[in-house]
């Protein structure tokens, strides 16, 4: 293993509601949804209509810009509904499961014996392509490009995140098959970042991959931070990234010849009675899972994903495509009397401005309250403390607000994804929506480049 990269800047948000590595039986889920909105910038072209029968792995829609990228059904059943929003934008394709799990057969194969084109074609047909994302822009990778390298972060350092090095135990074979497939897709290396402080036995026997250890607070597990420290992205370069659990599914596509949307997910957060891991299918309705597992029915914020980058979903919403975590925290729509003036013993803060610094190891229950109003950027030096890249975060954000593409490029916009700025947004005393600003900056560049 290469030497450990020590990440000094960052912040671990100490939330209550962490799950032990214990599994509970997930309830039977009847409704599933594939949401085009999970895939940023996607314009879907539907391939099915209401009432169609589908198998696991049947393509439901494809990407208008890259027609070979197909998005497939996570389960077998019948198309129950196609939910549209403004201007008939497709929001959800809802599938009623028949609980049979009959799957499309894409044929098993030994990855090592396939050519690059064959590997690509199988991933595209088998519905696994959307799980490969690219930097820059943090969007689904383009199949006609060749990345300079492919990066996998073997751990998630965000609050209450699933511990991949534990839950992937037993999936070593599929992981290896996935890595072998990735090796075919790039002329460069496949890099894996692991947590230096964790038991990495699951990754120990992997071949054809260059392993890097990272140590430090969140966002050390963000793949963007790892890329920056291993081989930073320059203008014109493209790298691809994939989540390790999705990589297992990719490996299984080659081993079993079927599309597998089952993931190990964690249900966590302060409002969950007993946080646990579950085997759950992506796109599944969380309604059954959340009944009887939450402390209260009211005033909850249900987040698909973690508290930093996840999406709010309703109690009968669906798990998003890239998320392996459901976090439930209290909604914070209350007025706090002199909240800014009180000592603040029970408030987690990155600063020492509250007396909570007294208790270093305490875990906190946090809600969705903004704790203040939006203001102009006043305080400096806050973002820098939680942003472990050689990029000037405030200046990059300002150039993104101004829509100055040249300046964004010069300041390193190609290296970052909105998720890398999540902590900046958390600590910001002006309550600036930094992730949205960076996302809009990236979108502006995509629009101007094409």
């Amino acid at each position: 293993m290469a030497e450990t990269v020590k990440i000094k800047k960052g912040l671990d948000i100490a939330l209550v509601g962490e799950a032990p590595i214990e599994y509970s039986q997930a309830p039977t889920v009847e409704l599933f949804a594939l949401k085009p909105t999970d895939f940023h910038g996607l314009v879907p072209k539907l391939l099915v209509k209401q009432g169609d029968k589908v198998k696991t792995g049947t393509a439901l829609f494809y990407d208008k810009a890259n027609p070979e990228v197909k998005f497939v059904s996570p389960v077998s059943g019948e198309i129950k509904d196609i939910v549209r929003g403004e201007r008939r934008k497709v929001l959800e394709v809802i599938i009623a499961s028949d609980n049979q799990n009959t799957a499309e057969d894409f044929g098993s194969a030994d990855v090592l014996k396939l050519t690059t084109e064959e590997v690509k074609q199988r991933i595209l047909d088998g519905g696994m392509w959307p799980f490969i994302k690219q930097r820059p822009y943090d969007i689904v990778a383009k199949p006609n490009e060749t990345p300079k390298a492919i990066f996998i972060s073997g751990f998630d350092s965000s609050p209450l995140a699933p511990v991949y090095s534990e839950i992937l135990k037993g999936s070593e074979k599929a992981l290896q098959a996935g890595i072998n497939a990735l090796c075919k897709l790039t002329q460069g290396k496949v890099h894996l970042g692991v947590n230096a402080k964790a038991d990495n036995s699951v990754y120990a026997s992997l071949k054809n991959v260059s392993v890097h250890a990272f140590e430090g607070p969140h966002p050390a597990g963000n793949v963007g931070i790892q890329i920056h420290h291993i081989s930073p992205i320059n203008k014109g370069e493209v790298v691809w990234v994939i989540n390790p659990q999705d990589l297992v599914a990719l490996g299984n596509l080659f081993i079993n010849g079927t599309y597998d949307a089952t993931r190990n997910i964690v249900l966590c957060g302060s409002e969950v009675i007993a946080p646990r891991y579950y085997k759950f299918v992506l796109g599944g309705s969380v309604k059954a899972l959340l009944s009887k597992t939450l402390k209260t029915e009211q005033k909850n914020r249900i987040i698909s994903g973690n508290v930093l980058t996840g999406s709010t979903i309703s109690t009968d919403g669906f798990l998003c495509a890239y998320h392996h975590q459901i976090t439930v925290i209290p909604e914070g729509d209350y007025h706090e009397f002199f909240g800014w003036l009180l000592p603040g013993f029970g408030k987690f803060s990155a600063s020492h401005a509250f007396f909570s610094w007294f208790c270093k190891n305490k875990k906190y229950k946090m809600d969705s309250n903004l704790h203040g109003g939006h203001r102009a950027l006043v305080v400096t030096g806050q973002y820098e403390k939680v942003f472990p890249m050689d990029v000037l975060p405030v200046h990059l954000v300002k150039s993104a607000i101004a829509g100055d593409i040249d300046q964004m490029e010069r300041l390193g916009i190609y290296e970052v994804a909105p998720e890398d700025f999540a902590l900046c947004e958390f600590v910001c005393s002006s309550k600036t929506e930094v992730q949205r600003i960076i996302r809009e900056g990236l979108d502006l560049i995509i629009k101007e480049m094409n």
Partner: protein
Amino acid sequence: MKAIRNYVDKIKPNFEKGGKLESFNSFFDAIETFLFVPNKVSKNGVHVHDPIDLKRTMIIVIVALIPSILFGAWNVGYQNALAYGLDRTLLENFWVGMIKLLPIIIVSYGVGLGIEIIMAQKRGHEVNEGFFVSGMLIPLIVPINIPLWMLALAVAFAVVFGKEVFGGTGYNIMNVALVARAFLFFAYPGQMSGDSVWVLNLKDQPMVDGFSGATPLALLNQTGTMPSASLADMFFGFIPGSVGETSVLAILIGAAILIFTGVGSWKIMLSTVLGALGMGYIFNLFGINAYMGINPVYHLVMGGLMFGAVFMATDPVTATSTEKGKWIYGAMIGILVVLIRVVNPAYPEGTMLAILLMNVWAPLIDYYVVESNVKKRLKRIAVK
């Protein structure tokens, strides 16, 4: 608390759009958010937020100022007693100072916040917290004898032309409190300099013979003689001067609070001190006159250098925004303060001018720090 909330909710519709008191919306909002942290929740992006906001940030600066305010109030009374040969207790001295200081604070806040609220209403913004701190800093850096109308004029000038014309808190180029002081300094030099302004005057009584009331800086500047006060007197603050500046000890307590909470930049404070010491030592090498030859430590305890370094140079809006830039910015302030003090015969004190000048220079420093970051990135491509 519940009752207050209910009352606020009851009267709130009057101030909202279409209500009969709509034009007081910003004022109402300022009061409401002062009493209650708003019930706003995160819409997109992160779902949890650090509880710190600008109100919290500003109140911490106010807390850090408390030692200077308390000591300063006492010192006003103490210097006044010395000047007129009065015999007073500690509490009496404090009382005399407070009586004089409170109206200044009230006028400063009243005028400044009034303008802020009108501006916020005009722009449809929420009232910004920036003046929380500026409004407290101004009374601490002006002479205690200042006529209140003069102060009101200076505050109005500073808030309108120092801040609001640029777009409000977060957009201003120069420190608002120092703009107010600079306005007074150049518009009413008679009230802002000289030996008599720094000690509370009693109208109908003559001062004790031999009491000059000159600050150590003024003595050095005008006569080139070393001040009679000892280094310890100057450190603890038993000397004439503006309310906030005299006690370095009180300022250091404030600095500790700012640094520990992370509200003030220790980089700026430290580099300012180092810059001043460095410049002082350079003058020592020349040693042409007595002033050049003094121990540079004197520069730290005389005048407003420490107060400026801790509470004014660290103003995040007007300082450099890059971390590397903060070192350069602070050091330049320290150097300029000593340079102005020693070399310029017209101004005994250089802190205000040095900080204002560096406020203007801060964007340039940032520009070069940003460019060096960009160059590193471009080099990476070139190497490949």
